Every structure is written in C-alpha cells, then in structure tokens.
C-alpha cells in the first residue's frame, strides 16, 4: 500500500489544479453558452506572464502572482467576454470554430514571444516538508495547492448561493433579456463571470507550471483537456463537482502511471486518462443531462451561387489549366514541393467540408485520420504492397476509428461531439502514436510510387487525385446522399419524422470523410520518405478547421483557397517567425469568420457604417432606425426556443 502514497499525493495535488481550471471553464460556459476551447491557452498565457514577471523582471513571487491573478486574468476576462458576445449569435459549430481560432491565435502569440521550446520554471511555493504520510513527505507547495483548490471551490459556491450577483449569474444563462428586465445588466453579470473564469485559468496555469517545474506552451494548452475530463464529471454544470472531478482525474492519472510501469505497451495511457474520462463520460451521461447551454441557433443556409453556370464552368476550367501549368511557371521553381503538399491536402479539406459544411457535423480530430492513413501506407509498404493499394488500405483503416467517432455523434451533437472528437485526436496522439503499430519511437518509412520520385511527375499524379476527390464530393453533394446530408444539417428532426434513420446518415458521412482524410494523409506522408509523430501534431486538426472556416463556404473554395493558405503561402514566406504570425492571422481570421457566420463578410462593415451614421444623425434617428430594423422582416436565422427535441433515441 505504501508505494501508492506518493502517487496519491501527487494525483490529488495535480487534480486540484485541474479542478481550478475546470471551474473557470464551467463558470464561463454556464454564463455565456460559449465553451472556451482556448481555456488552456489562457492558462498558458497566465503562466508565461508570471514567468516573465518573476524570472525575467525579477519581481518577488507574491507580487507577480497578484498581478497575474488580479490584473492579467481580469483583463483577459474582459476581452473574452466581448468575444463571447460576438459568438453568442452563431450556431454551435461556429462558436467552436471561433474558440478554436482563439486557441490557435493565442498559442501562436506565445510561441512568437517565448519560442516553442520549454523553459525551466523555478518553483515558487515553499518546498519544505509540511508533514509526512507513512514515510512519504508532503511539502508545503502541495498542501497550499490543495487548500487553494478547495478554498476556490468553497468561495465560488458560497458566492453563487448567497450573493445577488451569483443569483444573477444563474439567471443570465436562461434568459438574458429577462434578467435585463429585473434590473441586472446581463453584460455586467457575464463580464464578472469571465473575469472570475480567466483569473481561475491564470491561477491554474501558474500552479501547473510550478508543479511541472517547467513551462511549455503545448503542454499547458493541453491542460485544458485534463480540465475537460474534470468538467465532464461535473456534467459541465456543477462547480463543486469540478473540483471533485479534477481530483478524480488527477488521482486516476497518477495511479495509472504507477500501474503501467510494468507494461511498456500501455505507455502514455496515463496522459490519455483525462480524455478517456471525457469520452466515456460523454457516452454514458444521460443525454437529457447534456443539453447545451444557451440559445440554440440554426445555421443560415448557404445561398445558391449567383455566378451563372457557364462562367462558373469557365472559372473551373481556368483553375485546372493554371494547376496543370504550375510546375512550368516562373514563380514556382524550388517551391514545387509546397504545391505538392497543398495538393495532398485538397482531399483533406474537401472531406472536412463534407463533414462540417454539408452535413453540419464537426470533427476536431481530422488530422488524426490523416495520420492513420499515413501509418497504413507505411506499414503496408513495409509488407511489400504496391503504392496504390497501400494508399487505399490507409484510407480504409480510418473507417473503424470513424465508426468509433460516429458513436458519440449519434448520441450528441454540436459542442459535445466536438469535445469527443478533440479528446479522441489527443488520445491518438498521446497514447497511440508512439506504439510500434503506429509510428513507433522513430519514424516510419513511406515511399512514393515507382517512377514518381521526381517532384514534377509526382505533381501531376497528386493533381489527378485532388481533382478526383473534388469531383467525388461534388457528385455526393448533388446526389440523394447530398440532399440527405444537407437535410441532416438543417433539420435532423424533420428527416427522422420522414422515415430516415439519421444515425445511418451520420455513420456514412463520418466513414466517407474519414476514408478521404486517410487517403490524403497517406499521400502527404509519401512526400517525405518517412513520417513520425511530429508530422501529425494534433494541433493541426484545429488549425485546418480554422483555415477551412476562412476559406469560403463552397467545395471549390475549400479545395483551392485552404491548401494554398496553409502550405503554399508559408513556403514563400520562409521565415519561421513570420509563419507563426501567419498562423496567428489564421486564428484571428477564424474568430472573425465565426463571429460573422450568420451574415456575409460585409456584416461588420455595415454595422460600423450604421454606427457612424447614427452618431452623425443623433440618438433619436438612430433609435428609429433600430426600431425599424427590429420590426421589419428579419432574415437572420431564428433561435430555437424551449427544450430541445431529442433527435434520436
């Protein structure tokens, strides 16, 4: 028994940190209906600010801690509250895209300032022995963190039960307008919630860095998944259960890490524990307990193209001609490999388009499917299989995991589906990538097909595959399946009452999309001669979603704009810092696109113009205009009121 004690102590302490983080997350989600996927990035930002203040500016730690928790956190909260308001009027999928954009932007910003390598983070809390349990010493730091966790939970619960603001916070979620009538400003209430939430995030970031004795942006951003595990146990609702959930997850993680030392095959399972809790939780929590918070808004349909058909055809033809001429063009030259990379990603982007835009599902693990495709290619080539067959097997290997992801998709939609897929992607990266059946510790050899070792000849083969996959998606969109998928996105309930099994539709779309992503991954892997875990970083799943969001609403734009943005342009820029900046721009643009998802690109400009004309014309005129706008026929999507009708049973 004694050998477990150190693990229990560590588990409980780190669990308290997860709990604090989860409380901040759940609090902001409950009050604004926007689930902040970038919560971990906020934690990381807090830790880095603390690091700068203490280790670079040499401030004493209590001052640095006070500045981070009481100044940085609240400032961040105020900004995030504004963002949450911008995201509140869009469908869940775009709320997710928006916060994913925030994550990408924040992570790039931190990388830009501090670099991507981890730095030593000197512990600041007293390390002396407080007491010992059966010979294992417990230091002051651990005691303080645990007490802090419980104190924070206790304070929040008391605040919610007893204070007027706390009651108002509970009201703001249900009906902001009603709260407004009772004399509490919803904006003020939400702002406080985000301030508390961000301060908690900053605090947990600092404590986590301290327990790790190092600071690393990627690790800290991952902190959020541990918090997701804790939040799942709290059913994304209960604050006190967050801290309990945090400790359960922390304990499980450490105990698993103890048990698996004897089994090298299970290595990495401890890191995946919070995810497993998340995934299982989403599968077993009764669905009525997982109702999304806030108004549910239906996505506005993409209007039919206004470009006449002959012009469109001419446009496609010209694009194809340019694509055929690319290897010969003067500005390409040594950049040709980047064009090849972009071509392999066309298949990935159109598959994601089919899943997200056409059928209204969401996947935050699409790059994970690509990884499985590349792994399939590598292993099959290892057995001496010819290239084409190996690529197809790579795609087929994605179907079982796609089926696995379709299980939560059947039960859940929107936010919870996104969380399940994010967790799946991270588990794949943390637990599976390192195994010999995947990439192994080193790299996995992948080869190009015979006769295509030259970049230029390979370009034409890849172009052929890219064009074929675009045509495949276009054909699907025009077929019965396409109509069913668009129907699935618009109104699953209507489809069901017409006699169609929406679950079958979901399974089909996940399988098709996963298969195509696998093909894309296999081709992508073949470019490099060998692939390793770092080729398929899970963060890319988030980046590609952000890029898809800013690449227009149709298949053709997803197929052309997105790969160029993600591969060709960075290659011309070359400078790594500039490319981090570009990634940040993708994140910011995705946030912008998400906030304006229900209108066109012109919406913010129209709003700006209206506001300035209001200022010129005076308040009475402005009110008149607003009244007219309010009473007139609204073309905005209508919010769905009342309890959500369950879609499946």
């Amino acid at each position, binding site marked *: 028994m004694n050998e477990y004690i150190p693990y229990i102590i560590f588990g409980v302490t780190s669990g308290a940190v997860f709990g604090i983080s989860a409380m901040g997350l759940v609090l902001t989600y409950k009050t604004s209906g926007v689930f902040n996927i970038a919560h971990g990035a906020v934690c990381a930002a807090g830790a880095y600010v603390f690091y700068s203040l203490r280790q670079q500016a040499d401030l004493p730690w209590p001052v640095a801690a006070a500045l981070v928790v009481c100044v940085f956190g609240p400032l961040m909260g105020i900004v995030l509250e504004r963002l949450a308001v911008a995201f509140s009027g869009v469908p869940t999928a775009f709320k997710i895209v928006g916060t994913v954009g925030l994550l990408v932007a924040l992570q790039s910003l931190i990388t830009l300032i501090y670099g991507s390598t981890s730095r030593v983070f000197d512990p600041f809390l007293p390390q002396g022995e407080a007491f010992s349990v059966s010979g294992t010493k417990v230091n002051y730091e651990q005691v303080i963190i645990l007490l802090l966790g419980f104190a924070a939970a206790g304070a929040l619960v008391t605040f919610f039960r007893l204070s007027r603001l706390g009651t108002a916070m509970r009201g703001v979620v249900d009906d902001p307008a009603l709260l407004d009538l009772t004399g509490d400003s919803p904006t003020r209430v939400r702002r406080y919630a985000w301030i508390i939430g961000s301060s908690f995030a900053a605090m947990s970031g600092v404590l986590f860095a301290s327990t790790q004795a190092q600071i690393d942006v990627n690790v800290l951003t991952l902190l959020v998944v541990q918090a997701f595990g804790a939040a799942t146990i709290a059913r994304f609702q209960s604050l006190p259960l967050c801290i309990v959930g945090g400790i359960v997850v922390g304990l499980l993680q450490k105990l698993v890490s103890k048990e698996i030392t004897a089994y090298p095959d299970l290595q990495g399972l401890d890191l995946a524990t919070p995810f497993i809790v998340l995934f299982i939780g989403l599968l077993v929590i009764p669905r009525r307990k997982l109702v999304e918070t806030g108004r549910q808004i*239906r996505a*506005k*349909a*993409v*209007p*039919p193209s206004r470009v006449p058909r002959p012009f469109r055809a001419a446009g496609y033809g010209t694009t194809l001609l340019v694509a055929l001429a690319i290897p010969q063009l003067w500005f390409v030259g040594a950049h040709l490999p980047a064009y090849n990379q972009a071509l392999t990603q066309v298949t990935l982007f159109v598959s994601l388009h089919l899943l997200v835009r056409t059928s209204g599902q969401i996947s935050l693990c699409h790059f994970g499917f690509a990884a499985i495709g590349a792994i399939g290619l590598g292993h099959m080539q290892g057995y001496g299989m010819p290239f084409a067959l190996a690529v197809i097997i790579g795609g087929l290997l994605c179907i079982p995991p796609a089926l696995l992801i379709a299980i939560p998709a059947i039960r859940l939609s929107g936010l919870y589906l996104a969380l399940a897929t994010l967790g799946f992607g991270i588990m794949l990266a943390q637990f599976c990538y390192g195994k010999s059946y995947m990439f192994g510790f080193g790299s996995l050899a992948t080869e190009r097909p015979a006769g295509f070792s030259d970049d230029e000849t390979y370009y034409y083969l890849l172009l052929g595959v890219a064009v074929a996959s675009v045509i495949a998606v276009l054909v699907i969109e025009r*077929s*019965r*399946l396409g*109509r*069913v998928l*668009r*129907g699935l*996105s*618009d*109104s699953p*309930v*209507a*489809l*069901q*009452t*017409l*006699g*169609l*099994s*929406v*679950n*079958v*539709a979901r*399974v*089909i779309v996940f399988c098709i999309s996963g298969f195509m992503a696998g093909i894309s991954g296999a081709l992508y892997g073949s470019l490099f001669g060998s692939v390793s875990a770092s080729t398929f970083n899970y963060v890319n799943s988030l980046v590609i979603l952000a890029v898809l969001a800013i690449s227009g609403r149709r298949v053709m734009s997803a197929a052309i704009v997105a790969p160029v943005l993600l591969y060709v342009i960075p290659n011309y820029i070359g400078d790594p810092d500039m490319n981090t900046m570009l990634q940040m721009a993708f994140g910011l643009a995705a946030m912008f696109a998400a906030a304006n998802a229900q209108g066109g690109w012109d919406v913010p400009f129209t709003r700006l113009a209206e506001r300035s004309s209001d200022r010129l014309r005076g308040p009475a005129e402005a009110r008149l205009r607003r009244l007219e706008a309010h009473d007139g026929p609204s*073309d905005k999507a209508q919010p*769905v009121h009342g309890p959500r*009708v*369950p879609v*499946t*049973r």
Partner: protein
Amino acid sequence: MLLTPAESGLQLKDLVVRFGGLVAVDTVSLHAPAARLTGLIGPNGAGKTTTFNAITGLNRPTSGHVRLNGQDISKLPPQARAQRGLGRTFQRMELFDSLTVRENVALGREAGMAGSNPLRFLRCGAAERRQVRTAATEAMELSGITALADRRPADLSTGQRRLVELARVIASGFGMLLLDEPSSGLDKAETHRFGETLRTLVDERGVGILCVEHDMALVMRVCDYIYVLDFGKPIFNGTASQVAGSPIVKSAYLGSEAVEEALAGRSA
C-alpha cells in the same frame, strides 16, 4: 391486412406525458380513423404539440399506448413510425433551408425510401427517381406551390413555408398525417384553398388526418370529428356542431373573442 373500422388509423389509449412534476398530457385517448379529418383543439398550453411529439416518438410518454392501424407503435423510434405511414408537420416549421422547394418535397419521398439501409442512401435506380419526381410534382400541385419549385424556403412567407411542409408530407405518401397548426400564417384565400386540399387528401386519397388548429372557422368547416383538450386533459369530443354547442368548450376558451364568434356562428 383487413382492418375493422375501429382499428384503422391512429388510436391513443390513456396517453400520459410528464415533465418532472408537470403533467403535460393527462390520460388522453382518441381515435383518428383513416379517410377522416379529425381536429384536436384547445387553448394555448393544452398539450396538443406534446401529444404530437409523443405520437411521433420525439418524446417518451410516461404511460399509455399509441396504435397505428391496430399495431402498437409506442416503443418504436420516430423513423420506424414514419416508415409505417405516420407523418407530421411542425408548428415551428422544420424545413431544409439549404435545399430548393422541389428538393424539399422530393426529400419527403426519398427519406422514406432510404430508411435505414445505407445502400439506398448511396444509389437509386431510374425507376425510383421517376417515382420521386412524380410524387413531388403531384404534391406541389395539390398544395398549390408549383410556381415556387425553384425557390429556397428561407425566401418564402410563413404561409408558403407551411404549404411546402405540407407538400413534403404529401409526397411521402403517408397514410396518417399529423398537422400542427398548418394554417397559421396563411391569408384568407390561402386558408380556403388549404381547407380544400385537406378534404381532397381525405376524401380522394383516403388519408387520415389529425389536425391541431387555431383557426376555429376552418376547424368547424372541415373537421369530421373534434377532440378538445385543456390543461392536458380531454374535456370534450364530438362533431363540429356538438363542440360548438358545448358550454364546457366555451368556458375553456372564455375571453377569446375570435373563437367564441366562430363557435357561435356554427351553433346558430
């Protein structure tokens, strides 16, 4: 299958739906036979839409049975009930806004064909395609929306959208239709035409219809038999003139002038 008249169509037996402590539908029994237009009326909050949701399987009744043509469908999921010929429209219309009106109506038929067989999602033969096209064209003609075929539902008025939803369930070929406030948002001429459409469906195609409706004049004009709910409880049932003469119904609708007028007009 030979059905006795008592078995045909839709039957509810002692249906109860509870949400926590609230009894939204309290022991409702009714019979909506085939080739008959049955009305279900009641003031706001009487539990009409909840009853519809329970019949179509979108929420789970606490107790009671739903029978369709003599077969108990209480335990089936919504799509299986639809496959057995039970269709519905929604009070808050559930249209496919990214499809054209024609595609919406056609999907009404295609969804039933695809059912839960993955292969039939992916491919369909020429004969089937023809069948879908004919069904869609007929349904649009019957509901009077042929001129709107290539528009998007999002661009249409509420009344037109209602008609698109109606055309969609007509195209599906359901034997039993539940219509949830199908005439709200229609203008006078449209409402009149709509009444005729319903009668055509019932009299010529033998479809059974159970219809929740607030337009009392329309209900009194077209319904063969009427059930009245109030606070989840059935308070009266009878033919149009019986309902119009009933003091119980009058008191349930007390204060609602339009309804009182319609009732008075009918009983006079």
